[in-house]
């Protein structure tokens, strides 16, 4: 195969400049600022800062509350990724088989993608409202007193449900296009070999979907970690209290509510390292084992 190359270095550089400028201004600069201020203790009223070395990090590691938030975030990310991937896969497999009115089904399933996380959070508040929420009333029929904002487990249920509902459409779109790109002859050959739909799915379809699934897994982990912030904020209605906080929400609470910029920056640096690790994991481990066709 013939490779297309540039004779002159200046053209590719020129073409890359806009992209690099944007990355530098909106990513590297803030990331550097966060790293720098994580070594300082800032005055809450904005009158200067004192260098404290790694104190912000050590006090985080010593904090029992920070550990609790980290553990909850882990559980939350696992629940959201698992449910939004499996529900989306189920829907995609079913939608793939539909022939009549397929377009309308798909559009309906994808529509939720347009809902922004804070709006999803607001809908969550309405559905799980302490006294008028339909889900609260439904739970009451089964004798369960669902109380978001009071009981941590109930608040977690509301958070996970809302976040999953919001994320399923994205996964659905990817899974559906993944399913549709599986070559017909492969499926037909499988059909001759094996009559069972379930076993065909697990032995043929699912492995062929693996690249999509792993890509989505990473996307879902970052979604659950970061993009759900708006959902958390709306469901908590500005009161962290005894609600289950996520790591990102805690960055906000300490930095913007409490004006502790140093402590908050140290937390965001920890999150940056986490994302870096996730990216390395994605490229090194997963991409090596999964073969894209």
């Amino acid at each position, binding site marked *: 195969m013939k490779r297309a190359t540039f004779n002159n270095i200046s053209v590719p550089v020129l073409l890359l400049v806009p992209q690099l400028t944007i990355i530098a201004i909106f990513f590297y600069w803030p990331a550097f600022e966060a790293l720098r201020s994580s070594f300082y203790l800032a005055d809450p009223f904005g009158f200067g800062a004192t260098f*404290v070395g790694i104190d912000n990090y050590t006090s985080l590691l010593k904090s029992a509350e920070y550990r609790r938030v980290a553990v909850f975030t882990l559980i939350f990310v696992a629940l959201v990724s698992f449910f939004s991937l499996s529900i989306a896969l189920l829907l995609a497999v079913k939608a793939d088989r539909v022939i009549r009115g397929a377009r309308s089904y798909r559009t309906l399933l994808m529509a939720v993608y347009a809902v922004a996380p804070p709006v999803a959070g607001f809908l969550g508040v309405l559905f799980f409202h302490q*006294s008028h929420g339909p889900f609260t009333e439904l739970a009451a029929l089964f004798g369960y007193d669902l109380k978001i904002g009071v009981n*941590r487990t109930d608040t977690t249920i509301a958070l996970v449900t809302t976040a999953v509902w919001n994320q399923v459409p994205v996964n659905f779109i990817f899974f559906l296009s993944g399913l549709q790109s599986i070559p017909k002859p492969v499926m037909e050959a499988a059909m001759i070999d094996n009559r069972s739909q379930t076993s065909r799915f697990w032995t043929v379809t699912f492995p062929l979907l693996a690249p999509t699934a792993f890509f989505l897994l990473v996307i879902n982990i970052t979604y659950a970690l970061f993009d759900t912030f708006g959902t958390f904020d709306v469901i908590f209605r500005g*009161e962290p*209290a*005894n609600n289950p906080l996520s790591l990102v929400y805690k960055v906000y609470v300490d930095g913007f509510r*409490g*004006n*502790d910029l140093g402590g908050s920056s140290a937390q965001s640096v920890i999150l940056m390292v986490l994302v870096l690790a996730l990216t390395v994991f994605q490229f090194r481990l997963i991409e090596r084992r999964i073969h894209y066709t």
Partner: protein
Amino acid sequence: MIPVEDLLNDNGISFDINDYIAGVRYFYADANDKMIGMPFNSSTPIMYFNEAALEEAGVSAPTTWEEFAETTAPALKEAGYIPLSQSHLPWIFTENFFSRHNIQFASNNNGYGGTGTEILVNHPAIKAHFKALKEWRDADLFEWYGAGWGDNQTPFEEGKVAMWLGSSASFGGLKQKVDFPLSATFLPYWEGVNPEPTQTFIGGAALFAMSGKPAEENLATAKFFEYLTSPEVQYKWHRMTGYVPVTTASYELAKSDGYYNEEPAAEVGTQQLQKAAGEFTKGYRMGFYVQIRDVMNREYGRILNGETSVDEAFSVIEEEANDLLTRFARTQG
């Protein structure tokens, strides 16, 4: 920042801190009682009650928590009501709890003395109060709907809860929403803790004038402050919202206008702010206090859900709050 007292004096506007009603006077003042911020929308926690519900249960509004526990609450429960809810545990049941009983809340003269303050929240009286709250909740004598203000107020408006502790500033809104006879009284106290209860202090906000502005701007700011604290303007805000009239003159205007004959409950907040003062009723001053309140809310929620014990929770609050105070002191160093 220019202290409001200096700003007004420098611009030829007469200022006397004693023109302000007692519970408002020193909340935004420094350690030497000089007023720094100008209180504008000030309110204090009071107890609202549904008169019809109390009548049905055959009780009157309690003045002490002992009376609440022994008489009022069981009767209201019997009549089918949830006796009590409240909307802000740190403000009503912590800060103002200390003020109402005249107990020291923080070292360094409640923190007015500068940084290096330690919180004294781990006190037997407040621990006994939270133990009682947990027992009342378990016995359906008190309900807690989370840290959201509205979640605790709504059941009162709907008539499910008979008495609600909220802000005097909620009066204007409540009056329009409820369809039962609304009344209010002072925040109850524990007779066993202090048989001679003291005043509460305020919540709300103040106006601060920034330094480094030209003289004309300062003059304009001073004139604006004079306008905002004028009796007519304060009375108007008081009537529309329920925030207290911050000066004696505006309070007198409300009285002479006959407002409290129409709405006796509207006077409760102001009267409570003028009750006997004590050594520890001026207010408090602590850094990173927003986070300290968040820690309180977190631990209080855990107490009421039975996830931690009162003793454990208060030692956690004390420890985390003091860590935050030390951290704050370092930012000022």
